[in-house]
């Protein structure tokens, strides 16, 4: 049985009922709040983590919280606390079993786009390569902020008992701000500038932002959109003309992989605990995959990527496009494998041109 501050019910009998100016005083926090008292979390080797303090009643995340307030989970909440208007009040709406771990990881692995990228090592590049890098950075700085806007749209609607999920999404918002920053900085730092913003990107972003439910939104954002961007960042090693871009893409890749890890495990949690949600996820991904295919094959983004993969205009047909096809195969294979892991198999449902991309479904099923 958890100890509560009831144990101090009879203590401190001489405290005043009113302040020196006559205001009534409330000592119930000292004389018997109905919350757990006496918790002693064990520190881990790196300090006091969110996993460490998930002890006793404080570690229990209710499936359907009784309150709709901003009261911290585990506190003794007044009955008349106002309803904050939350609409995501089921744990299955937002939770992922790895969310505490991911929050700690995000906090520990923050980096600075100002300090941690070796900007001083930028070199003058051939015009075609500089243009291509600037075009890619234009597109990336546009699409990255969707992963800030979307959680921001939903977070204030999430029940506060799911605090750790909200905290993780806060780190994601910071991550994406940094990504928008780093790609904007790269576009403007080496004699180039921002180039074309095409309608394909905005169509995809609109599809994600307009998702009817948070679970649909996270399927579109984390599983599909961020999975796609994660693979572009991984390609950064192939498309980077200098060590500056390599570092930039590798650092961003680490962040993006965390976001994908949350999305994949959230979808899995939702599907395992509420199988009815599968169809709504499929419907969202049906639309999202088409929007992503349009975005991924948009003439500006695809040509910029091909140019970078080729290392310049000269080898674009011999090297750039074949490499791009190879990367697309890996990208969509990764996406389909994550869907399997999330418990939403797309193998029989997707309209993506898998055979054209040379994707072996048996390999993914394994």
């Amino acid at each position, binding site marked *: 049985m958890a100890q509560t501050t009831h144990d101090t019910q009879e203590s401190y009998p001489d405290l005043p009922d009113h302040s020196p100016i006559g205001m009534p005083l409330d000592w119930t926090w000292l004389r018997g709040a109905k919350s757990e008292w006496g918790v002693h979390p064990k520190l881990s080797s790196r300090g006091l983590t969110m996993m460490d303090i998930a002890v006793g009643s404080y570690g229990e995340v209710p499936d359907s919280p009784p309150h709709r307030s901003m009261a911290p989970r585990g506190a003794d909440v007044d009955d008349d606390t106002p309803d904050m208007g939350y609409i995501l009040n089921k744990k299955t709406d937002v939770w992922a079993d790895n969310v505490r771990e991911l929050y700690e*990881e995000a906090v520990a*692995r923050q*980096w600075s786009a100002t300090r941690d990228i070796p900007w001083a090592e930028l070199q003058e590049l051939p015009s075609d390569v500089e243009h291509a890098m600037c075009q890619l950075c234009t597109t990336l700085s546009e699409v990255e902020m969707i992963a800030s806007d979307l959680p921001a749209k939903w977070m204030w609607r999430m029940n506060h008992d799911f605090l750790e999920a909200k905290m993780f999404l806060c780190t994601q918002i910071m991550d994406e701000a940094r990504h928008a920053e780093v790609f904007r900085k790269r576009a403007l730092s080496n004699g180039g500038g921002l180039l074309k913003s095409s309608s394909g990107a905005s169509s995809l972003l609109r599809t994600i932002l307009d998702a009817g439910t948070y679970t649909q939104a996270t399927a579109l954002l984390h599983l599909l959109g961020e999975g796609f961007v994660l693979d572009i960042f991984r390609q950064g090693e*192939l498309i980077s003309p200098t060590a500056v871009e390599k570092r930039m893409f*590798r650092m961003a890749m680490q962040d993006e992989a*965390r976001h994908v*890890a949350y999305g994949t495990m959230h979808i899995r949690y939702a599907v395992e605990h509420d199988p009815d949600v599968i169809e709504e996820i499929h419907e969202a991904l049906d639309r999202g995959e088409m929007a992503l295919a349009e975005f991924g094959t948009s003439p500006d983004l695809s040509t910029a990527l091909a140019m970078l993969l080729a290392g310049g205009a000269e080898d674009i047909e011999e090297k750039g496009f074949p490499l791009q096809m190879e990367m697309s195969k*890996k990208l969509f294979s990764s996406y389909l*494998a994550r869907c399997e892991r999330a418990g939403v198999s797309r193998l029989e449902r997707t309209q993506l041109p898998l055979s054209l991309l040379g994707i072996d479904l048996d390999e993914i099923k394994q």
Partner: protein
Amino acid sequence: MQQDTALRVDSVEVFDTLATKLNARPEQYQVLGDAYLDIAFVMRRPDNSVFRIRVCFEDLSITKVAEIAEGEEENSDCWLEADLSVWEAMFANIREHGQATGMHTVNALTMRGVDMQLRGSDPMGVDRFSRFNQTLQWFLEGSNYDNT
């Protein structure tokens, strides 16, 4: 260990050296943050024998370096698999330049999946390769070791 004789990469000794170096200077890795990655390296020798080693990252340290048997790599989050010559070229590149350049980073090597393959039993484990990539890369770049 002398650099001229250090390129026997299919040995526990090399990975022990890298681990010792990281563990001696955790402050260098502080800027990247804590890492939690259980990864195996698989090296196919010309004589068809295979060297497998498992390395565990925890917080700002390496907690385990151990040669493993066939199939045990599947117990890791993910593993990197390549011919020994690819690993040798990667370490040689690091020693020459102080860090991996061009296509010699593990991310670049695995991206195409031709020279080196990134494998894992679980996509979440495979994604840990991306989540902790810079830490892993710096760990391997410790092979630009000196005698200190």
